[in-house]
């Protein structure tokens, strides 16, 4: 069974601080996605990383895929209250093509 573990599970920071969320697995994934989910809504795709070592930037968000395609990180620079939400990583299984989600990281950015 392929599992994705996210850390930390909860993060509460002040506006303007930087943060990093980690997504780790012992399994290799063909690609990895990051989603953001707000209360009462479904997850919304932020980015897909495909190549080991790949780095993608989306404004203040930086996503990295590990060289071995087993882990990923999301770094947010100068967090804003609008960044508050549940961040989910999801790996696409190399074997089944299924999307396997981590348990999520709840981020709260205080003004």
């Amino acid at each position, binding site marked *: 069974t392929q599992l*994705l573990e996210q850390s930390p*599970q909860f993060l509460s920071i002040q506006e303007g601080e930087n943060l990093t969320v980690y997504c780790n697995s012992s399994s290799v994934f*063909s*690609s990895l996605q990051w989603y953001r989910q707000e209360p*009462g*809504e*479904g*997850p*919304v*795709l932020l980015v*897909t990383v495909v190549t080991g070592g790949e780095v993608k930037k989306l404004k203040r968000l930086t996503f990295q895929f590990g060289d071995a395609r087993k882990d990923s990180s999301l770094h947010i620079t100068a967090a804003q209250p609008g960044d508050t939400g549940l961040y*989910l990583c*999801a790996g*696409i299984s190399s074997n089944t*093509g*299924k*999307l396997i*989600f*981590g*348990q*999520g990281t*709840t981020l709260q950015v205080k003004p």
Partner: protein
Amino acid sequence: EAGVVQSPRYKIIEKKQPVAFWCNPISGHNTLYWYLQNLGQGPELLIRYENEEAVDDSQLPKDRFSAERLKGVDSTLKIQPAELGDSAVYLCASSLGGTSTDTQYFGPGTRLTVL
């Protein structure tokens, strides 16, 4: 363009009662997914449809859960009878195709509370 529509948004029932959730995917999307999301967890796939065919229902508890997508568009997920442990958010998603590179678009979910 309208997103994935789900109804109801909230449902409260007593245990042993039946319940049904409805999903209307994005127009033109052939693939439809039902996920279960427990509080503080990521979504878990229950069933995937390609048009009207259920191509992956390995995680669907078939003793009490059933789903259908009769005309390859709307879908209904049913639980009968509901148990306390079924309390969760039920998410529907759709994608243009069923490959791993097709982006899945999620609906807002139905929050089920079983008392």
